[in-house]
């Protein structure tokens, strides 16, 4: 089979930004930072975000879908084709996440970015091993805590919507409702704390 990248001198100005992003995401194969995409294509982040939205619509009922998180984008196979892909996949099988992993993931999704101690506060158990499992599976990543240099926060990666069969985290079940409920309970705590 001949080279897939057929060298041809041509002005790529004719291609819309969506097409460029699609090609880049396909070539790279995994999640790419939106800021990185802007740099590669020499455009503004806002333009990239807009073009990614357009690409989402273009791919809406295709075999390939766009997966978007706040700052990353990736192409993935359609969730409806899960079983087909699973049948040709040659990677070590990963079992489903256990109760601990799912609960920790849920806390990070609906309350994240969140520190380890806040996760432990909610679950009442040590979170080290759950966080490790989630990191190993690429579902969660550790970032610096902007308000405390010595600690870290955990947040979901673009592997999470892919893992759950969603195109973006906004499709999470009852996202607004649950996040609101959690906020309400958590806030009643801080009110309490200032009163006493």
């Amino acid at each position, binding site marked *: *089979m001949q*080279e*897939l*990248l057929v060298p041809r001198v041509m002005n790529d100005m004719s291609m819309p930004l969506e097409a460029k992003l699609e090609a880049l995401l*396909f*070539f*790279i*194969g*995994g999640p790419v930072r939106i800021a990185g995409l802007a740099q590669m294509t020499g455009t503004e982040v806002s333009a990239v975000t807009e073009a990614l939205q357009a690409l989402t619509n273009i791919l809406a009922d295709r075999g*390939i*879908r766009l*997966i978007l998180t706040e700052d990353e984008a990736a*192409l*993935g*196979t*359609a*969730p*409806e084709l*899960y079983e087909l*892909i699973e049948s040709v*996949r040659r990677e070590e099988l990963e079992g*489903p*996440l256990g*109760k*601990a992993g*799912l*609960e920790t*993931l*849920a*806390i990070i*999704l*609906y309350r994240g970015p969140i520190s380890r101690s806040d996760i432990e*506060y*909610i*679950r*009442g*158990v*040590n979170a*080290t091993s759950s966080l*490790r499992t989630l990191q190993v599976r690429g579902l969660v990543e550790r970032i610096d805590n902007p308000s405390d240099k010595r600690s870290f926060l955990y947040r979901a990666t673009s*592997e999470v*919507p*892919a*893992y*759950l*069969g*969603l*195109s973006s985290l906004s499709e*999470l*079940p*009852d996202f607004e409702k*649950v996040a609101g*409920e*959690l906020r309400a*309970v*958590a806030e*009643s*705590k801080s009110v*309490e704390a200032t009163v*006493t």
Partner: protein
Amino acid sequence: MSATFSVKVSDYEGPLDLILALIEERKLLISDVSISAIADAFLAYVSEHGGFPVSEAAHFVAVAATLLLLKSRSLLPVLMLTSEEEGDIKDLEQRLKLLSIIKTVAQSLSALKGRLYFGSGVRSVEPIFVPPPDMTLQSLAAAANSAIVSAPRPQIRDEVEVRKVLSLDEMIERLTARIQSALTMSFRDFSQGASDPREIVVGFLAMLELVKRGFAEVRQQQHFDEITIEYAGAAGTPRYE
């Protein structure tokens, strides 16, 4: 019996998980009343089951102490809790509510089937060996060592004995001795020497344990009355109501 607070990790994911399960079992809503209602079942469960790993001990003891406070507040009106202790109770209630929401969400996440797979990228391009500028024997050896340093250590699965304020066993011994000598005494007499409300609570629980074991009879004529303890003779068969 072991007087340490312990729970088998395999059954419940820590104290909050256990409390939620007990509340749910009784079809109660989360409130200080329902938490207080399951306190006995909670303590019974933890004294019946085996140990738990070191890493869980701190979480467990903190929650158990708050449960003791709650229980005591509902049973011993003489006991005045500090605002910090009241805060602990409110705090526990809040954590249980948060976790309960999270559990529902986690369940619906596990119901999501199907997933999207990332592509593997364009593979037709033949790899080209380009030595990276930072690849040297030194940097590789250093990288291997740094990977080892942050790698997980083999888990220590020892069980620890956790003592909080006073262990139940110690209290039971003290109670047994005093009951035998005085035959009848009031709980107030018994708890007079206690400085920490938690100590009173442990005493109270120890008393309940004695009743259960058939060592003592406890009488309370009316609500808020003096609680009287009587020696019920030799250690007999345990009684379970």
